[in-house]
């Protein structure tokens, strides 16, 4: 069953916490991965791959650069999850 927006944000928060050590509660829709959450471009790749597995979605390299905020990633997953 497809994940809801709340479930996706919570899932991304767990992933970002696991990969970058950022507190789960800091991961909010309006936060920028690089500017607010200190997720650099390489960690972002790890976040994307973990999100792909968790939400059964494909996020090609060309789309990764458009995912600036947690909201961008959440919307992308909502739209593309199978």
């Amino acid at each position, binding site marked *: 069953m497809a994940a809801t927006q709340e479930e996706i944000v919570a899932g991304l928060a767990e992933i970002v916490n696991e990969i970058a050590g950022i507190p789960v509660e800091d991961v909010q829709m309006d936060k920028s991965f690089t500017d607010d959450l200190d997720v*650099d*471009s*390489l960690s972002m*790749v*790890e976040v*994307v*791959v973990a999100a792909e597995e968790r939400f059964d979605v494909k996020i090609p*390299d060309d789309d990764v*650069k458009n995912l600036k905020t947690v909201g961008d990633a959440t919307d992308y997953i909502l739209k593309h999850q199978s």
Partner: protein
Amino acid sequence: MSKIKPSKGAPYARILGVGGYRPTRVVPNEVILETIDSSDEWIRSRSGITTRHWANDEETVAAMSLEASGKAIADAGITPQQIGAVVVSTVSHFKQTPAVATEIADKLGTDRAAAFDISAGCAGFGYALTLAKGMVVEGSAEYVLVIGVERLSDLTDLQDRKTAFLFGDGAGAAVVGPSKEPAIGPTVWGSEGDKSETIKQTVPWTDYREGAAHRPEKFPAITQEGQAVFRWAVFEMAKVAQQALDAAGITAAELDVFIPHQANMRIIDSMVKTLKLPESVTVARDVETTGNTSAASIPLAMERLLATGEAKSGDTALVIGFGAGLAYAATVVTLP
């Protein structure tokens, strides 16, 4: 029909000796920062690199190879005359004909050994090792000298803040010869030419021909798409590494040493995590002070681990090279 006598090789092959050469000039991040807008902290956090070696005019591809080869031959306990073939993997020898391997074979004092260069980027050592193993087992050479050598400083755009800090120069050599026991496992290798744009030389040499319509302002350099390379290297190459372990019948718990291509510390750390290697496995992290030396990185890292005692002769090591092509090669070996 006439009957052709088959060649006769050894039952198995092994790496008998390894040697390395790092150029005398050590280049810290401060020097890189003279031409790019970045910081020591940024370079360290993105790559784990603190210093790299850059060759001077005397430290040519052939000269560095000769130094590394001399050590590998001594380590193997053979003479140059016993070497039947010399295989050099490089992308930074700028005189394409003749192959630099012929000069090396001659200057080492081999007895007219077969000699040729191959181009497989950062997978080059694994490709050359696979060829060497085949030659030893098939019988076309009793001992094969495998060399990975690069002067990547010649192919580095010092104004490119994404790659200027990455590359280094050096040579690594290994002698492959006969063995009674299997000591080089099956190679898992391949190429993904559909991803060739992710790591490449900016422009072809022919753009510099006299009368060329458009002559580039800058000398060719290696460029790469960092995120795409990182994803491929960590997640796709971890699968290849696992396949090489499976093909050799070795479990992660049985593995002593992991020597991935020294591309970037972040790739190495993420691969270790993705492969779930136990803490008992020694991991090569030579990239910190050697930078990314492409085809030379695996034998250089192997030599350092053995020299420092972090790894020992007889240890079981997983080696995997991956890079431009995109090409890759992984195998399990017994360390010399």
